[in-house]
Every structure is written in C-alpha cells, then in structure tokens.
C-alpha cells in the first residue's frame, strides 16, 4: 500500500515516522493492499506502544490528581484502535470513542494534546471545554466524539454523504462499542448510511462489556456481524487483538467504501482489561478472565512476537519503546507547564455571530466570582467528587 511513502525503504523509518506522524499519501492514489511492509508493521508497534505508555503516564498523573475528571483506558485494545485507523488514508476521517486513543494518535493527535486535554489546560485542543480525548481536527482527519453513545454514527453518515455528493474518493470510519449498538442513534445512522450507500466503515469494538454490562445483556445476536444482514450491508469480522488482522479487515471495508460499494460493518473482537474508567473495580468480571486475556492475548506482546519471528531484533523494539518514553517525558513536561483556561474564555464562541456572550451583570468587571475553587460552608466535610463515568 501507498501509505507513508516518505519512510519507505529504511528499516529505521518507523522511528522517524513515529517522531512526526506519518505523512500519509493522498487517498486518490490509494491501492488496496491488505498486507503490510515491515516498516509499516513497526509503525503499528510504535502506535500501540505509544498508546499504552501514554495511558500509563496518564495513570500516574491521575494518581497525582493532575487529571481533571475520569481516566479511561484502552489497555488490551490498542490493536483494535491502531490497526483499524491505520487502514485509512490521508483525507479520510474517523470518529473515535473513548477506547480509541490509538486511532487518534495514528491520525495525528499528539501526546501533548492528549495530556493537556486530560489536565484541562487552557492550551489544550478544546481550551478546557471538553473532557479527556473528546476533541478532533477535520484537517488531520478525526472528529471529536460526544458522550451520548451512538450519536457519531449519524454524524459520520453525513460526513461521508458529503464525500459521495462531491465525488471525493474519501472514506469515513466510525467506532461504536458493543454497548452503543443498542442505541437508536446507531440504528438510524447506520441504516441511513446503508440506504445512501455512504462510503462509511462502522467498526463495532466488541470488548465484552459496556461498563459493567456483558454483551449477553446487550444483544441476543450471536455476533455483531449478524447485524449487517439486517441492514443489507457488507461485514467483516476479525480478531481485534491481532493488529494486522484488524488492519486487513478494516482495510477491506475501507476499500469497498472507496470503490463506491457502501457501508461495511466490521466487528473487532477484543477485551477491555481495565474497568470502564479508573474508578471501576471490575467486581462484576468473573475471576481469572482479565488475567487470561493479559497472559494469552496481549495485542502488543502478540505483535512483538510476530515481529521478532519475522527477524526484527529485540533492540529495534527496545529502541522504539525508549523513544516512546522520551517523547512522553517531553510532552508531559510541556503539558505541566501549561496554564489553566482564562475564565472569560468560557463565554467565547457559542455562535459564530455573536462571537461571545457577555458576562452576566453580577460578574461584570470581575475575573470570576471565585478565584479559588469555592465551596459552600454548609456542605460539610469535603469528599472528593466521584469521578464520573463517560
């Protein structure tokens, strides 16, 4: 495939590409390769490692109470996020969910952005307005999610309808969890896209749980690909913990979309090894289940083993690991230096016109009614706010 031209032919290209996100080529020239070069497989390794280490970094910051709000992990799901996003070309657009940090990184989101975002900094991508990885950049090709699940499916139907209307050879990809398939928005969106034959890939990340709810209480379908039949669309199913298989299955859907053959539902089977968010103790998970997935089916370990078997040296991988950490150290230092948002910025940009709201009269002329985190005396003993679910 034509991806990351600039780095072809050099074994160390992967690391180069890692420093700056791969400059993927124009979608129009895209081939339909579903096999990958070693350089590309090393890129996949890098993105997965970056995802995991970045989340580990966030855990540290969370424990230091530097993260505002909840922290969401994709531990064990890095392959499904990275492999699927990697199937897109420049110009294509994806809409990530809370487990798709990896997809966003592949699409060019930077660790610095993620860190600032989680720490609610004033120079974060949403200037402190939105949580965690809820942000986007249509230029780089990802659109930020909102919390109500399923809503991004109709939105991405509209994004890809536009591609089709304009005759652009671009493709969209939207993620939904096993849980989110139960929403009306998912249904209306995928059905609309199917009827309109939008160039859209719908990736169902079946990670076994929606918060505490096992898949068996979410649907009676044997498997999520069965839903494709009811929508009259194509489907693919893959082992979501095999990054190459994930890539290939998604790529088939992407190619189909680009050929004008409409929607594909891709089911990626994976497993959520951490709780819904950091506060969740996973009491509802059968004993041993998590450990078994960790032991037998870690996507990074599996990919590393594949690379090693293919002759990649342990040093090469270790260097990539070290580079990831270096990059994260740098990003963390920078992120910690950022300031908090200026209160008055809260009133800017609700509309294009007027460009800002005026402060209410009882605030007029003041920076804010409270500069510190004000708390009524009558509220009694302070307890830390429960970290909300997403």
């Amino acid at each position, binding site marked *: 495939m034509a991806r990351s031209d600039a780095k072809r032919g050099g074994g160390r290209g992967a690391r180069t590409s890692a420093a700056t996100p791969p400059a993927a080529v124009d979608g129009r020239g895209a081939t339909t390769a579903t096999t990958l070069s070693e350089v590309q497989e090393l890129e996949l390794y890098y993105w997965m490692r970056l995802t995991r280490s970045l989340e580990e970094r966030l855990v540290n910051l969370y424990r230091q109470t530097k993260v505002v709000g909840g922290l969401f992990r994709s531990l064990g799901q890095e392959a499904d996020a990275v492999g699927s996003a990697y199937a897109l070309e420049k110009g294509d657009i994806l809409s990530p969910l809370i487990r798709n940090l990896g997809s966003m990184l592949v699409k060019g989101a930077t660790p610095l952005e993620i860190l600032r975002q989680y720490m609610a900094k004033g120079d974060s991508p949403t200037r402190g*307005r939105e949580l965690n990885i809820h942000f986007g950049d249509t230029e780089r090709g990802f*659109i930020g999610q909102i*919390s109500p699940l399923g809503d991004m499916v*109709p939105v991405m139907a509209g994004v*890809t*309808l536009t591609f089709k*209307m304009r005759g652009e050879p671009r493709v969209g990809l939207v993620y939904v969890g096993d849980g989110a398939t139960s929403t009306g928005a998912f249904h209306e969106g995928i059905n609309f896209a199917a009827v309109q034959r939008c160039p859209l890939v719908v990736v169902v990340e079946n990670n076994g749980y929606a918060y505490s709810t096992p898949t068996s209480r979410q649907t009676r379908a044997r498997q999520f690909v069965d839903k494709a039949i009811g929508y009259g669309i194509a489907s693919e199913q893959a082992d979501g913990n095999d990054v190459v298989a994930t890539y290939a299955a998604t790529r088939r859907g992407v190619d189909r979309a680009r050929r004008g053959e409409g929607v594909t539902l891709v089911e990626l089977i994976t497993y959520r090894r951490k709780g819904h968010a950091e506060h969740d103790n996973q009491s509802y998970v059968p004993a041993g289940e998590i450990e078994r997935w960790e032991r037998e089916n870690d996507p990074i370990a599996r990919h590393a083993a594949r690379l090693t078997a293919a002759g990649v040296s342990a040093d090469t991988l270790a260097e990539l690991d070290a580079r990831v950490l270096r990059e994260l150290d740098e990003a963390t230092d920078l992120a910690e230096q950022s300031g908090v948002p200026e209160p008055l910025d809260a009133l800017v940009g609700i*509309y294009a016109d007027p460009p800002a709201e005026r402060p209410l009269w009882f605030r007029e002329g003041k920076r804010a009614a409270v500069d510190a985190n004000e708390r009524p005396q009558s509220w009694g003993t302070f307890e830390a706010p429960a970290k909300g679910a997403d």
Partner: protein
Amino acid sequence: MAEITYLEAIREALFEEMERDPNVFCLGEDIGAYGGAFKVTDGLMATFGEARVVDSPISEIGIVGAAAGAAHMGMRPVVEMQFIDFIANAYDMLTNYVATARYRAFLPCPMVVRGPSGGYVRGGPFHSQNPEAGFIHTPGLKVVYPSTAADAKGLMKAAIRDDDCVLFFEHKYLYRRIKGEMPSGDHVVPIGKARVAREGTDLSIITYAATVYKALDAAEQLEREDGLSVEVIDLRSLAPLDDEAIVATVKKTNRVLIVHEDTRTGGIAGELTARINESCFEWLDAPVLRVTAHDVPLPYAPTLEDFVLPQTPDIVLAARRLAAY
C-alpha cells in the same frame, strides 16, 4: 408584484438559496418525489436532482445527525421534520450534539431544521406542537418563527446563510392562508430582529407566529371599541431575542401583554417577563400579563382545541384588564 403564500415564500427561498449556493441541500422524509407532506419542497427534486433533495428513511435522529456531519464538511443542509412535533426524537442530537459543536469542538454546524408547527388545524396532540421553549433554552441554537410571507422568505434565507444551526418553525395554519408581496432583490431578514406589526401607545402585545394575527384583530377591536392604541410586536426570532425592540416597546407603552400559542408553564412568556422585569421594572405601570394555551396536550376536537388555545377574545379581555390597571 404578485402576492405569494407563506408556504410559497419558503419554497422560493429554498429555490433561490439552492441556486445560489451548491452546498445547500435538502434532507427529509417524503420531500423529494412527493414534495413533502405540505408540498413545501415541491419541485425542488425536479430542479436540483436526487442528490440535493434527499428522501430519507423515517429517522429524525439520523437525518439531523447526518445534516450536522455534512455541515461540518462545508455543506448547508436544510432538514425537514415532516411535522415539527417529531423534532422531539432529535432532541439529544440537537441539544447535545449540534448546539455544542462549535463551542466544544470548533466545528461549524450551519444547518436549518424546519417544519410545520402549531395548532388551530385540528391536528391533535402530535401534529400541532410549538416546541420552541425546549430549544430557546439551549445555548448554541437559534430559533425563528415567522408570521408573514415576506419574513418567511427572508428569514429562511438568513437561516440558510447563518453559520450556526437555526430551527425554523413554520406555522402550518398560515401556510396557505397568508399571502404577501416579496420585496425585490435578495431579500434577507436578519435573525434576532423583531418587527413592529402595528404601532401603538397605550399598551404592547408581544407575540409571534399565528397569534400575531389574533393580536392584530384584538388591537383593531380595542381601538374601535375602547379607543385604545395597541402596539403589536412580532418577535420573529425567539433565539436570540430582540431585547432592544422589547425594551423600546415597554418604555413606550408601559403595559405589556405577552401572547403565545404554546402551553403556559415554561413557555417563552416567562423568559420575556423576566427580561422585561430586569430591564424595565421602573417603566411598568402594570404587571406583565400573558395569554397562552392551557397546560394540556392539545386535543383534537374543535371545541376542545379552541378552548385550549388562545383566541382573540382572550387577548381583548386581557388587554382591557391591563389598560384599566
């Protein structure tokens, strides 16, 4: 120039905007081949083709969401709710996704959601609603509700050109009953500006949509029978509200009656009263009164519907009370 109906005025605006800007397209149930339940989009598909007049499945969440996605990409979709009552199905998509897009994600979301609204047509509880209150409450949305043919056209053009989402409520009772001449040229009515429908000095009636006509009839009667000079303000835009025009009329007449067809509790009259109270308390010679529908789902039988909805005699009675205060 020949007069055209309120409905034709909307259609004319759609035609002209689609001609002007290739990014404008229409999306909705039965709007294409059939031309819409009320025929507002009649002829559009024949002129602009299936790609720009999209017949959709029955999926209000789906089409509002799809419009948002298209708007992010630079399109300017106009979505029809077959009846505005079904906008309730898209409440999450509109209030959570669309309204916040610019603020939380710097995503432009220029789109129009339009549809036949309002009662007096024996439509029963699900084909007569005035859902504005649930939306003026949401920062990030704009809401307009014209009463004249010229405003219907001019506001539709403004709505389509606005860089944010505009909910465009069309009063179905007015569709074919109201006619007007279209101002020549590129007739755009700015969003956020009220209209003085009738000048007066003794008291002000603030209203919009179908009840503008009831207010005008009442004003006529009050002038004739009581010698009262009644000013009638047609809000046209409900979000943002035209505070200047509201303050001006209050300071002029010192007595305000708000009339709306929507149910009473939580209707927009409350917000108007609060604003008048805050900004013009000293100018008020009487309490702000409101004539509204009763707080019930709108029933279907004529005797019931007519009882529940505000009528001209109600306005006359309330205005007399206010004038005598």
